[in-house]
């Protein structure tokens, strides 16, 4: 498929989502917005895990840091996009620090190091009541205005989030298309060889964590404004596992992998739960069981994720 056709399909798909949102129920628009928010975080995680090969179970911590920065700053009257920038910068530097263990340990050891970080951040959110409100959380988080237009409405806020997601995805695509993307892949495939070819594996490892973390921080800001109330629960490490699952189910290291994975992780359980067809009524009680079985079957049959389905039938092709 040539590039023009791909671009047309992509633009048509984005336009279709925008139209569907305009016609959808309020609860469905909420789900689409939530999907867009999680996609910002999973796009970042895909860079860290899928492209640079650095295991991370700490993405929800950055998501939470972004959300709490947003809650505090937006309530203090800081403009929304300034908050987005602050959250991105703070998470970038915290992610940079979290990248240091990756210079010493890899794979499941690194997974546990990042998981420990997530638990630490979660405990701070839960226990530092003066700042975070503890388990009571922070409520009344405002939604932004843009050029005088209020984004208070659910549809307006969806369009803002969706447009921001497109911008973030474009920036990541551009980054991965640059020589940095190739260096990340070299780091993932063979760090010893990469270093012997002049690839600064220290810099790229830290950058992979920092950029992935910044994306999660940005997602956290949009999340806080979406739900308007935050408490530590959504930033538990189970959310990190869910984000990692989204990346792996869709296709780790494939640009659109997180799109497929996040849609499945966020929307599939809801679709199963809401199914009104007589034959699928049992799903309303058993949807999580069915969802779990579907993920297990998928991982056994397609360990490279849904987007690797083509590779099962075709060997060799890189492009």
């Amino acid at each position, binding site marked *: 498929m040539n590039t023009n056709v791909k671009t047309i399909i992509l633009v048509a798909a984005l336009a279709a989502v925008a139209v569907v949102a305009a016609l959808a129920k309020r609860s469905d628009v909420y789900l689409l917005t939530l999907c867009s928010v999680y996609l910002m975080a999973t796009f970042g995680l895909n860079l860290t895990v899928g492209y640079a090969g650095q295991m991370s179970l700490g993405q929800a911590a950055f998501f939470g840091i972004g959300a709490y920065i947003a809650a505090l700053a937006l309530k203090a009257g800081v403009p929304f996009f300034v908050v987005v920038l602050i959250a991105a910068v703070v998470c970038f530097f915290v992610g940079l620090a979290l990248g240091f263990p990756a210079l010493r340990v890899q794979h499941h050891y690194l997974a546990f190091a990042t998981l420990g970080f997530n638990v630490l951040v979660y405990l701070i959110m839960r226990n530092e009541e003066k700042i975070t409100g503890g388990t009571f959380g922070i409520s009344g988080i405002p939604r932004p205005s843009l050029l005088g237009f209020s984004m208070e409405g659910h549809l307006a806020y969806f369009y803002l989030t969706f447009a921001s997601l497109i911008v973030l995805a474009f920036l990541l695509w551009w*980054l991965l*298309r*640059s*020589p*940095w993307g*190739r*260096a990340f*892949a*070299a780091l*993932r*495939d*063979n760090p*010893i*060889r*990469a*270093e*012997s*070819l*002049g*690839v*600064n*594996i220290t*810099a790229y490892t830290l950058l992979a964590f920092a950029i992935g973390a910044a994306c999660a921080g940005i997602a956290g800001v949009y999340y806080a404004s979406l739900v308007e109330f935050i408490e530590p629960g959504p930033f538990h490490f189970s959310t990190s596992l869910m984000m990692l699952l989204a990346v792996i189910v869709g296709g780790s*290291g494939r640009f659109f992998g997180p799109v497929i994975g996040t849609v499945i992780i966020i929307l599939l359980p809801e679709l199963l739960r809401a199914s009104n067809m007589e034959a699928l009524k049992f799903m309303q009680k058993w949807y999580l069981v069915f969802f779990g079985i579907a993920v297990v079957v998928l991982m056994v049959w397609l360990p490279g994720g849904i987007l690797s389905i083509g590779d099962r039938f075709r*060997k*060799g*092709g*890189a*492009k």
Partner: protein
Amino acid sequence: MTPFLEVKDMKKAYGAIKAVDGVSMSVGPGEIVGVIGPNGSGKTTLFNSILGQITPTAGHVEFCGEDVTGMSPLELSRRGVGRTFQTLQVFGKLSVRDNLIVAAQEFKGSLGSRLMAKPDAGLGQHADEMIELFRLKHVAHLYAGTLSYGQQKLIDIAMAFMPAPRLVLLDEPCAGVNPSLVDQLRELLVELNKVQGGSFVVIEHNMDFIMKLCPHVICMVEGKVLAEGPPATVQSNRQVLEAYLGN
């Protein structure tokens, strides 16, 4: 002739085992030096000690007059020292062309400028020339990991030469390569030596290959240099025949 690479009294011990035991060698500009020796004679340990992959117990390495002992592989590569490994070391999920581009892109500009650079980092044409030279055009857009061992070996070697290094250390370039490719590989190395003008140090078990390629050969046994000189001299050395060839 001023030595390009000079190794002085290099030692590497693992407990009581002396893997490299006082090896000294020098390589001149544009020179091709072969290193032979039976398995376990310390050739690869010597390479890894020179290249910063492991820390030597004692000894010095000088490259172009600079003491580079213990420098990291990254620092050495920045100084123009390339290498290949005994086992295949390609980037399996990158295309052949991308493998070659990534092998040289980090030598162009700064980290920041590479973010703003063209996707091929301005190396597309050079990569295509290397692909042509190594006869890999028909597989240029395939994932390197899906190719045959021999083809991956060629990619591995081509990658080492992409940034036009001043010194390349090749660890068993013929290992696992189809005998029909060995002559082609030797011709390629001779051509690259002429075109790029770099110095090579080659570890190899294929005697025919090394004797035809290298004007100077070093034979190592039990971590020490047993003999060195022109191929014919080393080949006829009685101790070499006994220790290495076994007759």
